[in-house]
Protein backbone atom coordinates (compact mmCIF):
# COMPACT_ATOMS: atom_id res chain seq x y z
CA UNK A 1 0.00 0.00 0.00
CA UNK A 2 1.18 3.54 -0.73
CA UNK A 3 -0.02 6.58 1.15
CA UNK A 4 0.66 10.16 0.19
CA UNK A 5 -0.06 12.84 2.76
CA UNK A 6 -0.37 16.53 2.05
CA UNK A 7 2.09 16.67 -0.85
CA UNK A 8 2.99 20.22 -1.82
CA UNK A 9 5.45 21.25 -4.52
CA UNK A 10 6.21 24.58 -6.15
CA UNK A 11 8.65 25.57 -8.90
CA UNK A 12 9.89 29.18 -9.04
CA UNK A 13 7.10 30.25 -6.69
CA UNK A 14 4.37 28.61 -8.77
CA UNK A 15 2.45 25.90 -6.86
CA UNK A 16 2.25 22.73 -8.91
CA UNK A 17 0.87 20.41 -6.23
CA UNK A 18 -1.34 21.70 -3.43
CA UNK A 19 -1.89 19.40 -0.48
CA UNK A 20 -2.49 16.11 -2.32
CA UNK A 21 -3.36 13.15 -0.10
CA UNK A 22 -4.51 9.68 -1.03
CA UNK A 23 -4.13 5.96 -0.41
CA UNK A 24 -3.28 3.44 -3.14
CA UNK A 25 -4.12 -0.12 -2.24
CA UNK A 26 -2.25 -3.25 -3.25
CA UNK A 27 -3.62 -5.50 -5.96
CA UNK A 28 -5.51 -2.57 -7.48
CA UNK A 29 -4.98 -0.28 -10.43
CA UNK A 30 -4.97 3.31 -9.28
CA UNK A 31 -5.21 6.01 -11.92
CA UNK A 32 -4.19 9.64 -11.66
CA UNK A 33 -5.84 11.60 -14.43
CA UNK A 34 -5.99 15.22 -15.44
CA UNK A 35 -5.23 17.59 -18.26
CA UNK A 36 -1.74 18.48 -19.41
CA UNK A 37 0.23 20.56 -16.91
CA UNK A 38 -1.95 19.70 -13.90
CA UNK A 39 0.91 18.13 -11.94
CA UNK A 40 0.37 14.42 -12.61
CA UNK A 41 3.95 13.65 -13.62
CA UNK A 42 5.32 15.84 -10.82
CA UNK A 43 3.20 13.87 -8.34
CA UNK A 44 4.50 10.61 -9.77
CA UNK A 45 8.10 11.82 -9.53
CA UNK A 46 7.50 12.90 -5.92
CA UNK A 47 6.24 9.41 -5.17
CA UNK A 48 9.19 7.61 -6.78
CA UNK A 49 11.79 9.88 -5.24
CA UNK A 50 12.93 11.82 -8.29
CA UNK A 51 11.58 15.14 -7.00
CA UNK A 52 11.47 15.90 -3.29
CA UNK A 53 8.17 17.53 -2.28
CA UNK A 54 8.38 20.83 -0.41
CA UNK A 55 5.99 19.42 2.16
CA UNK A 56 4.26 16.14 2.86
CA UNK A 57 5.18 12.51 3.06
CA UNK A 58 5.08 9.38 0.93
CA UNK A 59 4.62 6.14 2.87
CA UNK A 60 5.34 2.72 1.46
CA UNK A 61 3.68 0.21 3.83
CA UNK A 62 4.17 2.72 6.67
CA UNK A 63 7.81 3.47 5.74
CA UNK A 64 8.23 7.21 5.18
CA UNK A 65 10.35 7.43 2.04
CA UNK A 66 11.80 10.92 2.54
CA UNK A 67 12.38 10.57 6.27
CA UNK A 68 14.05 7.19 6.18
CA UNK A 69 17.72 6.36 6.24
CA UNK A 70 19.54 5.66 3.00
CA UNK A 71 19.29 1.86 3.35
CA UNK A 72 15.52 1.94 3.81
CA UNK A 73 15.15 4.24 0.81
CA UNK A 74 17.30 1.89 -1.26
CA UNK A 75 15.18 -1.06 -0.13
CA UNK A 76 11.98 0.76 -1.12
CA UNK A 77 13.46 1.70 -4.52
CA UNK A 78 14.25 -1.94 -5.16
CA UNK A 79 10.61 -2.79 -4.61
CA UNK A 80 9.54 -0.35 -7.30
CA UNK A 81 9.12 -0.93 -10.98
CA UNK A 82 8.70 2.14 -13.18
CA UNK A 83 7.54 2.38 -16.78
CA UNK A 84 8.53 5.78 -18.13
CA UNK A 85 6.61 7.56 -20.85
CA UNK A 86 9.11 6.82 -23.61
CA UNK A 87 10.20 3.50 -22.16
CA UNK A 88 13.59 4.91 -21.08
CA UNK A 89 15.39 1.89 -22.53
CA UNK A 90 19.19 2.05 -22.53
CA UNK A 91 20.16 2.69 -26.15
CA UNK A 92 23.50 0.89 -26.00
CA UNK A 93 21.99 -2.39 -24.77
CA UNK A 94 19.85 -5.02 -26.46
CA UNK A 95 16.29 -5.71 -25.33
CA UNK A 96 17.50 -8.71 -23.35
CA UNK A 97 20.29 -6.70 -21.69
CA UNK A 98 17.82 -3.95 -20.81
CA UNK A 99 15.51 -6.40 -19.06
CA UNK A 100 18.43 -8.14 -17.35
CA UNK A 101 19.99 -4.87 -16.19
CA UNK A 102 18.34 -4.66 -12.72
CA UNK A 103 19.29 -8.29 -12.07
CA UNK A 104 22.91 -7.62 -13.07
CA UNK A 105 23.14 -4.56 -10.88
CA UNK A 106 21.10 -5.47 -7.85
CA UNK A 107 21.21 -9.26 -7.38
CA UNK A 108 23.71 -12.06 -7.04
CA UNK A 109 21.79 -14.51 -9.18
CA UNK A 110 23.72 -16.86 -11.40
CA UNK A 111 23.82 -16.34 -15.16
CA UNK A 112 21.37 -19.23 -15.63
CA UNK A 113 18.88 -17.86 -13.12
CA UNK A 114 19.01 -14.41 -14.71
CA UNK A 115 18.51 -15.90 -18.19
CA UNK A 116 15.48 -17.81 -16.97
CA UNK A 117 13.94 -14.76 -15.33
CA UNK A 118 14.56 -12.54 -18.38
CA UNK A 119 13.05 -15.13 -20.73
CA UNK A 120 10.00 -15.40 -18.48
CA UNK A 121 9.49 -11.62 -18.41
CA UNK A 122 9.93 -11.26 -22.17
CA UNK A 123 7.51 -14.12 -22.73
CA UNK A 124 5.03 -12.43 -20.39
CA UNK A 125 5.00 -9.33 -22.57
CA UNK A 126 5.06 -11.30 -25.82
CA UNK A 127 8.58 -10.33 -26.91
CA UNK A 128 10.51 -13.56 -26.47
CA UNK A 129 11.79 -13.31 -30.07
CA UNK A 130 13.03 -9.72 -29.75
CA UNK A 131 15.76 -10.27 -27.17
CA UNK A 132 18.71 -9.58 -29.46
CA UNK A 133 17.31 -6.42 -31.02
CA UNK A 134 18.36 -2.90 -30.07
CA UNK A 135 15.83 -0.33 -28.82
CA UNK A 136 16.24 1.64 -32.05
CA UNK A 137 15.05 -1.40 -34.01
CA UNK A 138 11.70 -1.89 -32.25
CA UNK A 139 8.41 -0.01 -32.39
CA UNK A 140 6.98 2.30 -29.73
CA UNK A 141 4.56 -0.32 -28.47
CA UNK A 142 7.35 -2.87 -28.23
CA UNK A 143 9.49 -0.39 -26.29
CA UNK A 144 6.66 0.04 -23.80
CA UNK A 145 6.37 -3.73 -23.42
CA UNK A 146 10.14 -4.05 -22.89
CA UNK A 147 9.81 -1.27 -20.32
CA UNK A 148 7.11 -3.29 -18.55
CA UNK A 149 9.28 -6.42 -18.66
CA UNK A 150 12.17 -4.50 -17.10
CA UNK A 151 9.84 -2.99 -14.50
CA UNK A 152 8.59 -6.41 -13.34
CA UNK A 153 11.84 -8.39 -13.58
CA UNK A 154 12.64 -7.78 -9.91
CA UNK A 155 9.15 -8.85 -8.73
CA UNK A 156 8.22 -5.36 -7.57
CA UNK A 157 5.56 -4.58 -5.00
CA UNK A 158 4.80 -1.23 -6.61
CA UNK A 159 4.43 -0.50 -10.31
CA UNK A 160 4.34 3.05 -11.64
CA UNK A 161 3.41 3.81 -15.23
CA UNK A 162 3.77 7.29 -16.70
CA UNK A 163 1.30 7.57 -19.58
CA UNK A 164 1.83 4.01 -20.83
CA UNK A 165 -0.43 4.58 -23.85
CA UNK A 166 1.01 7.82 -25.14
CA UNK A 167 1.93 7.64 -28.81
CA UNK A 168 0.32 4.24 -29.32
CA UNK A 169 -2.48 3.20 -31.66
CA UNK A 170 -5.80 2.17 -30.06
CA UNK A 171 -5.21 -1.58 -30.52
CA UNK A 172 -1.76 -1.51 -28.97
CA UNK A 173 -3.04 0.73 -26.16
CA UNK A 174 -5.63 -1.89 -25.28
CA UNK A 175 -2.96 -4.61 -25.24
CA UNK A 176 -0.75 -2.54 -22.91
CA UNK A 177 -3.72 -1.89 -20.61
CA UNK A 178 -4.60 -5.57 -20.49
CA UNK A 179 -1.00 -6.52 -19.77
CA UNK A 180 -0.78 -4.07 -16.88
CA UNK A 181 -4.07 -5.34 -15.49
CA UNK A 182 -3.02 -8.99 -15.69
CA UNK A 183 0.31 -8.31 -14.00
CA UNK A 184 -1.32 -6.28 -11.24
CA UNK A 185 -3.85 -8.99 -10.46
CA UNK A 186 -1.42 -11.87 -10.80
CA UNK A 187 1.32 -10.48 -8.57
CA UNK A 188 -0.89 -8.38 -6.25
CA UNK A 189 1.12 -5.25 -7.07
CA UNK A 190 0.08 -1.71 -6.14
CA UNK A 191 -0.14 -0.12 -9.58
CA UNK A 192 -0.32 3.60 -10.19
CA UNK A 193 -0.91 4.87 -13.70
CA UNK A 194 -0.65 8.46 -14.88
CA UNK A 195 -2.87 8.91 -17.88
CA UNK A 196 -5.32 11.07 -19.71
CA UNK A 197 -6.66 8.18 -21.75
CA UNK A 198 -10.32 7.77 -20.79
CA UNK A 199 -10.39 4.34 -22.36
CA UNK A 200 -7.85 3.13 -19.80
CA UNK A 201 -9.89 4.73 -17.02
CA UNK A 202 -13.05 2.91 -18.00
CA UNK A 203 -11.42 -0.41 -18.97
CA UNK A 204 -8.85 -1.07 -16.25
CA UNK A 205 -9.02 1.73 -13.70
CA UNK A 206 -10.35 0.86 -10.27
CA UNK A 207 -9.55 3.88 -8.15
CA UNK A 208 -9.31 7.19 -9.95
CA UNK A 209 -7.93 10.53 -8.76
CA UNK A 210 -8.57 13.65 -10.81
CA UNK A 211 -6.07 16.51 -10.57
CA UNK A 212 -6.85 20.01 -11.73
CA UNK A 213 -4.26 22.82 -11.52
CA UNK A 214 -2.45 21.06 -8.68
CA UNK A 215 -5.57 20.29 -6.61
CA UNK A 216 -7.23 16.95 -6.13
CA UNK A 217 -10.76 17.71 -7.25
CA UNK A 218 -12.25 14.24 -7.28
CA UNK A 219 -11.45 10.71 -6.15
CA UNK A 220 -13.51 7.56 -6.52
CA UNK A 221 -14.07 4.41 -8.49
CA UNK A 222 -14.21 4.43 -12.28
CA UNK A 223 -17.87 3.49 -12.52
CA UNK A 224 -18.80 6.65 -10.61
CA UNK A 225 -16.74 8.98 -12.76
CA UNK A 226 -19.40 9.66 -15.36
CA UNK A 227 -21.94 10.52 -12.64
CA UNK A 228 -19.85 13.23 -11.04
CA UNK A 229 -21.08 16.80 -10.80
CA UNK A 230 -17.59 18.34 -10.69
CA UNK A 231 -17.63 20.63 -13.74
CA UNK A 232 -13.90 20.44 -14.48
CA UNK A 233 -14.02 16.63 -14.41
CA UNK A 234 -17.09 16.57 -16.63
CA UNK A 235 -15.39 18.84 -19.10
CA UNK A 236 -12.32 16.54 -19.06
CA UNK A 237 -14.27 13.28 -19.47
CA UNK A 238 -16.71 14.50 -22.08
CA UNK A 239 -14.16 16.31 -24.20
CA UNK A 240 -14.13 13.04 -26.16
CA UNK A 241 -17.07 13.06 -28.60
CA UNK A 242 -17.52 9.31 -28.45
CA UNK A 243 -17.98 9.41 -24.69
CA UNK A 244 -20.21 12.46 -24.96
CA UNK A 245 -22.50 10.76 -27.46
CA UNK A 246 -22.53 7.54 -25.42
CA UNK A 247 -23.43 9.47 -22.28
CA UNK A 248 -26.26 11.27 -24.06
CA UNK A 249 -27.66 7.95 -25.22
CA UNK A 250 -27.46 6.57 -21.70
CA UNK A 251 -28.96 9.74 -20.27
CA UNK A 252 -26.10 10.15 -17.79
CA UNK A 253 -25.54 13.78 -18.81
Amino acid sequence: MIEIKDINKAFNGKAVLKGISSTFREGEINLIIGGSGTGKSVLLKCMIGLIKPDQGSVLYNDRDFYNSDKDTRQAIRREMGVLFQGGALFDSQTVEENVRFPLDMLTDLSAGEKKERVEFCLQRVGLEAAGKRMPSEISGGMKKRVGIARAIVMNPKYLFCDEPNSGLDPLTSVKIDELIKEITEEYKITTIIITHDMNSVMEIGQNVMFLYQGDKLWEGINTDITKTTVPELNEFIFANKLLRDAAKENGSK
Partner: protein
Amino acid sequence: MMSVIGKYFIFLGSLFGKGEKLSVYWRRFMEESVGIGVSSIFIVAIVSTFIGAVSCIQTAYNLVSPIIPVSTVALIVRDMQILELAPTITCIVLAGKVGSNIASELGTMRITEQIDALEVMGINSSSYLVLPKVLAAMFTFPMLVILAAFLGIFGGYLAGTLTGVITERDYLYGIRDSFVPYNLFFMCIKPFVFGFLIATISSYQGFFTQGGALEVGKSSTQAVTNSCISILVADYLLAQLLL
Protein backbone atom coordinates in the same frame (compact mmCIF):
# COMPACT_ATOMS: atom_id res chain seq x y z
CA MET B 1 29.51 31.37 -11.94
CA MET B 2 30.29 30.43 -8.32
CA SER B 3 27.11 28.35 -8.06
CA VAL B 4 28.10 26.47 -11.21
CA ILE B 5 31.55 25.76 -9.79
CA GLY B 6 29.99 24.66 -6.50
CA LYS B 7 27.54 22.40 -8.28
CA TYR B 8 30.44 20.94 -10.28
CA PHE B 9 32.34 20.03 -7.11
CA ILE B 10 29.21 18.53 -5.55
CA PHE B 11 28.81 16.49 -8.73
CA LEU B 12 32.43 15.31 -8.40
CA GLY B 13 31.68 14.25 -4.83
CA SER B 14 28.67 12.23 -5.94
CA LEU B 15 30.91 10.12 -8.22
CA PHE B 16 32.40 8.55 -5.12
CA GLY B 17 29.10 7.88 -3.35
CA LYS B 18 27.66 4.42 -2.83
CA GLY B 19 28.81 2.42 -5.82
CA GLU B 20 27.88 -0.84 -7.43
CA LYS B 21 29.73 -4.15 -7.82
CA LEU B 22 33.39 -3.96 -8.84
CA SER B 23 32.80 -6.30 -11.77
CA VAL B 24 30.25 -3.84 -13.16
CA TYR B 25 32.69 -0.97 -12.94
CA TRP B 26 35.49 -3.03 -14.51
CA ARG B 27 33.30 -3.90 -17.50
CA ARG B 28 32.19 -0.28 -17.88
CA PHE B 29 35.80 0.92 -17.55
CA MET B 30 36.95 -1.40 -20.34
CA GLU B 31 34.05 -0.34 -22.59
CA GLU B 32 34.80 3.33 -22.00
CA SER B 33 38.54 2.81 -22.54
CA VAL B 34 37.79 1.36 -25.96
CA GLY B 35 35.28 4.08 -26.77
CA ILE B 36 37.42 6.96 -25.52
CA GLY B 37 40.94 5.69 -26.14
CA VAL B 38 41.06 3.14 -28.90
CA SER B 39 38.62 4.99 -31.13
CA SER B 40 40.75 8.16 -30.87
CA ILE B 41 43.97 6.58 -32.13
CA PHE B 42 43.36 7.46 -35.77
CA ILE B 43 42.60 11.14 -35.26
CA VAL B 44 45.50 11.52 -32.81
CA ALA B 45 47.86 9.85 -35.26
CA ILE B 46 46.81 12.08 -38.15
CA VAL B 47 46.93 15.32 -36.16
CA SER B 48 50.23 14.65 -34.44
CA THR B 49 52.04 13.47 -37.57
CA PHE B 50 51.08 16.59 -39.49
CA ILE B 51 51.81 18.90 -36.58
CA GLY B 52 55.25 17.35 -36.26
CA ALA B 53 55.83 17.76 -39.98
CA VAL B 54 54.74 21.40 -39.97
CA SER B 55 56.77 22.24 -36.86
CA CYS B 56 59.91 20.81 -38.51
CA ILE B 57 59.42 22.77 -41.73
CA GLN B 58 58.59 26.03 -39.96
CA THR B 59 61.45 25.69 -37.47
CA ALA B 60 63.89 25.07 -40.33
CA TYR B 61 62.44 28.12 -42.11
CA ASN B 62 63.18 30.31 -39.09
CA LEU B 63 66.63 28.90 -38.26
CA VAL B 64 68.59 30.64 -40.99
CA SER B 65 71.75 31.47 -39.01
CA PRO B 66 74.77 29.51 -40.27
CA ILE B 67 76.25 29.29 -36.79
CA ILE B 68 73.35 27.27 -35.47
CA PRO B 69 73.71 23.58 -36.34
CA VAL B 70 70.93 22.10 -38.47
CA SER B 71 70.41 19.35 -35.87
CA THR B 72 68.90 22.07 -33.65
CA VAL B 73 65.77 21.81 -35.80
CA ALA B 74 65.27 18.26 -34.58
CA LEU B 75 65.97 19.24 -30.96
CA ILE B 76 63.36 21.97 -31.15
CA VAL B 77 60.80 19.66 -32.79
CA ARG B 78 61.43 17.07 -30.08
CA ASP B 79 61.03 19.47 -27.18
CA MET B 80 58.03 21.21 -28.72
CA GLN B 81 56.31 17.89 -29.22
CA ILE B 82 57.12 16.56 -25.76
CA LEU B 83 56.50 19.69 -23.74
CA GLU B 84 53.54 21.21 -25.50
CA LEU B 85 52.22 20.06 -28.85
CA ALA B 86 51.67 16.39 -28.08
CA PRO B 87 49.93 16.82 -24.72
CA THR B 88 48.07 20.07 -25.25
CA ILE B 89 47.06 19.99 -28.91
CA THR B 90 46.18 16.30 -28.66
CA CYS B 91 43.99 16.94 -25.63
CA ILE B 92 42.30 19.91 -27.27
CA VAL B 93 41.44 17.66 -30.21
CA LEU B 94 40.22 15.03 -27.76
CA ALA B 95 38.15 17.67 -25.95
CA GLY B 96 36.28 18.11 -29.19
CA LYS B 97 35.93 14.44 -30.02
CA VAL B 98 35.56 12.81 -26.63
CA GLY B 99 34.08 15.74 -24.75
CA SER B 100 31.25 16.35 -27.18
CA ASN B 101 30.56 12.62 -27.33
CA ILE B 102 30.31 12.33 -23.54
CA ALA B 103 28.14 15.43 -23.17
CA SER B 104 25.72 14.47 -25.92
CA GLU B 105 25.48 10.87 -24.72
CA LEU B 106 24.67 11.87 -21.15
CA GLY B 107 22.45 14.74 -22.30
CA THR B 108 20.41 12.40 -24.46
CA MET B 109 20.16 9.91 -21.60
CA ARG B 110 18.91 12.71 -19.36
CA ILE B 111 16.19 13.95 -21.70
CA THR B 112 14.98 10.42 -22.52
CA GLU B 113 14.70 9.64 -18.76
CA GLN B 114 17.33 6.88 -18.88
CA ILE B 115 19.17 8.54 -15.98
CA ASP B 116 15.87 8.75 -14.06
CA ALA B 117 15.38 5.03 -14.72
CA LEU B 118 18.78 4.34 -13.12
CA GLU B 119 17.99 6.54 -10.13
CA VAL B 120 14.65 4.86 -9.55
CA MET B 121 16.35 1.45 -9.53
CA GLY B 122 18.47 2.71 -6.63
CA ILE B 123 21.65 2.97 -8.70
CA ASN B 124 24.03 5.89 -8.15
CA SER B 125 23.71 7.12 -11.74
CA SER B 126 26.59 9.61 -11.63
CA SER B 127 28.96 6.99 -10.26
CA TYR B 128 27.81 4.29 -12.68
CA LEU B 129 27.82 6.46 -15.79
CA VAL B 130 30.56 9.00 -15.17
CA LEU B 131 33.26 7.43 -13.02
CA PRO B 132 34.26 4.82 -15.63
CA LYS B 133 34.51 7.60 -18.24
CA VAL B 134 36.76 9.69 -15.99
CA LEU B 135 39.03 6.77 -15.14
CA ALA B 136 39.16 5.66 -18.78
CA ALA B 137 40.13 9.17 -19.90
CA MET B 138 42.84 9.47 -17.23
CA PHE B 139 44.16 6.04 -18.22
CA THR B 140 44.09 6.30 -22.02
CA PHE B 141 44.99 9.94 -22.62
CA PRO B 142 48.64 9.57 -21.49
CA MET B 143 48.98 6.62 -23.87
CA LEU B 144 47.53 8.64 -26.71
CA VAL B 145 49.88 11.52 -25.92
CA ILE B 146 52.89 9.19 -25.93
CA LEU B 147 51.76 7.97 -29.33
CA ALA B 148 51.25 11.58 -30.45
CA ALA B 149 54.74 12.59 -29.34
CA PHE B 150 56.32 9.67 -31.16
CA LEU B 151 54.36 10.31 -34.33
CA GLY B 152 55.00 14.05 -34.11
CA ILE B 153 58.74 13.50 -33.97
CA PHE B 154 58.43 10.90 -36.75
CA GLY B 155 56.34 13.31 -38.81
CA GLY B 156 59.07 15.90 -38.40
CA TYR B 157 61.62 13.34 -39.53
CA LEU B 158 59.59 12.46 -42.64
CA ALA B 159 58.94 16.08 -43.59
CA GLY B 160 62.52 17.20 -42.87
CA THR B 161 64.28 14.40 -44.72
CA LEU B 162 61.88 14.18 -47.64
CA THR B 163 62.05 17.94 -48.29
CA GLY B 164 65.79 18.05 -47.75
CA VAL B 165 65.82 20.67 -44.97
CA ILE B 166 67.68 18.25 -42.68
CA THR B 167 69.53 15.01 -43.19
CA GLU B 168 68.58 11.83 -41.42
CA ARG B 169 71.85 11.85 -39.51
CA ASP B 170 71.36 15.43 -38.29
CA TYR B 171 67.79 14.71 -37.31
CA LEU B 172 68.65 11.61 -35.30
CA TYR B 173 71.52 13.47 -33.66
CA GLY B 174 69.26 16.40 -32.82
CA ILE B 175 66.50 14.36 -31.18
CA ARG B 176 69.06 12.76 -28.86
CA ASP B 177 70.95 15.93 -28.08
CA SER B 178 70.47 17.49 -24.59
CA PHE B 179 67.56 15.22 -23.80
CA VAL B 180 65.95 15.84 -20.38
CA PRO B 181 64.11 12.71 -19.15
CA TYR B 182 62.01 14.80 -16.74
CA ASN B 183 60.24 16.26 -19.78
CA LEU B 184 58.68 12.85 -20.43
CA PHE B 185 57.27 12.79 -16.93
CA PHE B 186 55.88 16.29 -17.47
CA MET B 187 54.43 15.16 -20.80
CA CYS B 188 52.54 12.33 -19.07
CA ILE B 189 51.26 14.43 -16.16
CA LYS B 190 49.51 16.86 -18.49
CA PRO B 191 47.15 14.38 -20.23
CA PHE B 192 46.39 12.78 -16.87
CA VAL B 193 45.12 16.14 -15.61
CA PHE B 194 43.55 17.14 -18.93
CA GLY B 195 41.74 13.79 -19.18
CA PHE B 196 40.18 14.36 -15.77
CA LEU B 197 39.10 17.87 -16.74
CA ILE B 198 37.64 16.88 -20.12
CA ALA B 199 35.74 13.88 -18.74
CA THR B 200 34.35 15.62 -15.66
CA ILE B 201 33.42 18.90 -17.33
CA SER B 202 31.77 17.19 -20.30
CA SER B 203 29.95 14.75 -18.00
CA TYR B 204 28.74 17.62 -15.84
CA GLN B 205 27.37 19.47 -18.86
CA GLY B 206 25.60 16.40 -20.20
CA PHE B 207 24.33 15.11 -16.86
CA PHE B 208 22.49 18.32 -16.03
CA THR B 209 21.00 18.96 -19.47
CA GLN B 210 17.38 20.05 -19.31
CA GLY B 211 15.09 20.38 -22.25
CA GLY B 212 15.27 18.74 -25.64
CA ALA B 213 17.56 18.16 -28.59
CA LEU B 214 18.51 21.83 -28.79
CA GLU B 215 19.73 21.83 -25.21
CA VAL B 216 21.73 18.64 -25.80
CA GLY B 217 23.51 20.41 -28.64
CA LYS B 218 24.17 23.42 -26.41
CA SER B 219 25.51 21.17 -23.66
CA SER B 220 27.83 19.49 -26.12
CA THR B 221 29.17 22.82 -27.41
CA GLN B 222 29.53 24.18 -23.89
CA ALA B 223 31.38 21.03 -22.85
CA VAL B 224 33.96 21.48 -25.59
CA THR B 225 34.39 25.21 -24.93
CA ASN B 226 34.74 24.82 -21.18
CA SER B 227 37.06 21.85 -21.56
CA CYS B 228 39.35 23.77 -23.92
CA ILE B 229 39.51 26.77 -21.60
CA SER B 230 40.24 24.51 -18.62
CA ILE B 231 43.00 22.74 -20.54
CA LEU B 232 44.71 26.02 -21.39
CA VAL B 233 44.51 27.28 -17.81
CA ALA B 234 45.73 23.97 -16.42
CA ASP B 235 48.50 23.91 -19.03
CA TYR B 236 49.83 27.21 -17.79
CA LEU B 237 49.52 26.23 -14.12
CA LEU B 238 51.29 22.91 -14.66
CA ALA B 239 54.09 24.60 -16.58
CA GLN B 240 54.49 27.19 -13.83
CA LEU B 241 54.45 24.61 -11.05
CA LEU B 242 56.41 21.73 -12.53
CA LEU B 243 59.02 23.36 -14.74
